[in-house]
């Protein structure tokens, strides 16, 4: 039974890993190929031709684009989490009138299609004088991540047992201290997960990034990839695009590997409760 269960388990792991990884693997293979070779199927890399990777950096300030993406996504995550955790504490732990209405209002922000919001956001960014700047992008992306962060964190906040904070309040701690000392450590898995997801949302954002920046040095990664072209507008430089995509995935993998411990590390709610 255990042997069979174990084989089944690993089979499942492998199937999921292959499904998740195969397109990425194919992207890596494609990034080593160029020209007509891209119109045929290959399962193994035929050669390690890195010219597509050099081309990505030669033709545009791709290093800057990656850095911009890191700055924008990093700031978006930091702001979203800071605002989200405090708001989630209030929504999740304190009963006050209008709470449901406010939560629904925040959610409503996520109910408009992005393209409908684009024009208004464009005017707003220009009015603030933030056109073609990173802060403009950060502000715009907050609209995509903040409702999500607040909601998810509120849900997790609510799940924590009631006794946790009562002891602290009896000791005369202020709500702010309770949030920082008691909830922050307990919320670590949820916060890291939410932060990671918010990071990726911001990292992948294309429409705002394209519209609110003008110069190549200010662009983030997704529009930078969309700018890649062959010798004419029709030709799709597939190898270069794949090389760019592989490069931009690496920071995310690194981030997950670094933070994944935190997803599990923080939590022993049971211990506090007991």
């Amino acid at each position, binding site marked *: 039974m255990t042997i069979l269960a174990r084989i089944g388990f690993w089979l499942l792991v492998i199937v999921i890993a292959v499904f998740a990884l195969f*397109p990425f693997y194919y992207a890596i293979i494609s990034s080593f190929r160029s020209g007509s070779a891209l119109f045929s199927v290959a399962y193994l890399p035929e050669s390690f031709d890195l010219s597509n990777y050099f081309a990505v950096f030669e033709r545009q300030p791709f290093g800057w684009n990656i850095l911009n993406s890191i700055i924008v996504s990093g700031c978006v995550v930091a702001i979203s989490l800071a605002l989200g955790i405090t708001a989630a504490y209030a929504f999740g732990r304190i009963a006050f009138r209008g709470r449901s209405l406010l939560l629904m209002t925040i959610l409503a*922000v996520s109910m408009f299609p992005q393209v409908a919001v684009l024009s208004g956001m464009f005017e707003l960014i220009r009015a603030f004088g933030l056109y073609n700047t990173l802060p403009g992008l950060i502000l715009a992306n907050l609209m995509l991540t903040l409702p999500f962060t607040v909601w998810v964190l509120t849900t997790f906040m609510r799940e924590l047992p009631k006794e946790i904070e009562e002891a602290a309040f009896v000791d005369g701690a202020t709500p702010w201290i309770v949030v920082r000392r008691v909830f922050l450590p307990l919320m670590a898995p949820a916060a890291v997960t939410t932060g990671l997801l918010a990071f990726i949302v911001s990292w992948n954002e294309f429409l705002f990034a394209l519209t609110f920046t003008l110069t190549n040095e200010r662009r983030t990664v997704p529009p930078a*990839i969309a700018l890649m072209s062959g010798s004419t507008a029709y030709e799709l430089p597939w190898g270069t695009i794949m090389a760019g995509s592989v490069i931009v995935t690496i920071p995310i993998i690194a981030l997950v590997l670094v933070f994944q411990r935190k997803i599990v590390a923080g939590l022993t709610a049971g211990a506090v409760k007991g």
Partner: protein
Amino acid sequence: MIMSGAVAEAEIPVRTTARGKRSSLTRSRIRAAWAFIAPSLIVLALIAGWPLLRTIWFSFTDANLNDLSDYKIIGFENYLAKYDDEWFGVLTEPDWWRSVWNTVWFTLVSVSIETMLGIVVALILNAAFPGRGLMRAIILIPWAIPTIVSAKMWNWMLHDQFGVINDMLLRIGLIAAPITWTANPDTALWTAVMVDVWKHTSFMALLILAALQMLPQDIYEAAKVDGVSPVRVFFRVTLPLIKPALLVAVIFRSLDALRVFDLIYVLTSNSKDTASMSVYARQQLVDFQEVGLGSAASTLIFLIIALLVVITLAAGRVRLGEDPR
């Protein structure tokens, strides 16, 4: 629970003094609540207020991208209007209703699959096994590739003549002739679902994993001692406990799926047979420059999504004002 009961009992003798203290505590906590929420609200109002109100406002005008300053208010004509015995407006467009149906179908199917698959993946990731950290990174890779790229990548891989997917299936012998995945409207939406599942299952899985990680361990130990089968533990204990987090994950995934644009646009372009609501709205707003009509469509999308969210919340018996347990 037992502990809080004990606290309540102990409080009885000193009730009168405690009540005075508690209400001032409550007042100060409510003040703190507003202070904590205010920054988020201000930021959201600042960045989202204008764009959203502007969209709703324009939906009642005949604004055109040609000259945005020159428009007049036309009431509900963008939604529904009658000229010369003929009905006009978004609500009378068969294309619009087709896109609504496409989107709702796409959302139902893809979010259901993602939820089930997400739970499975989360349970796997929750188990202790060597390489768990790596596996967490692996399942996030699909999400880490920007959609504009991954959708194109799939388009390439799904090409009927030189795509790797058909080649693979032909080699394995699962199919006899190449499948035209994206060209045929019947299979195109299923293909979109498959790519969406590939991309977004990790979102579900990660949120569910976080919920699993936040569960108190003692419940499991108790179940273990009692010798309850793991499947029963999952359905009787785990699932009810992670339900709130699961529901939030489902809601946000549905919000995204209901607004799906890039994926469908890259896979099938402007085809009416597969257009989603956002594709329709974009076409009006950008391709046709009809800011008024496009805003009306966007507002309708908002209303449809709001309705579906309310239904979901009601069905999930979520009370937003619920107190911590």
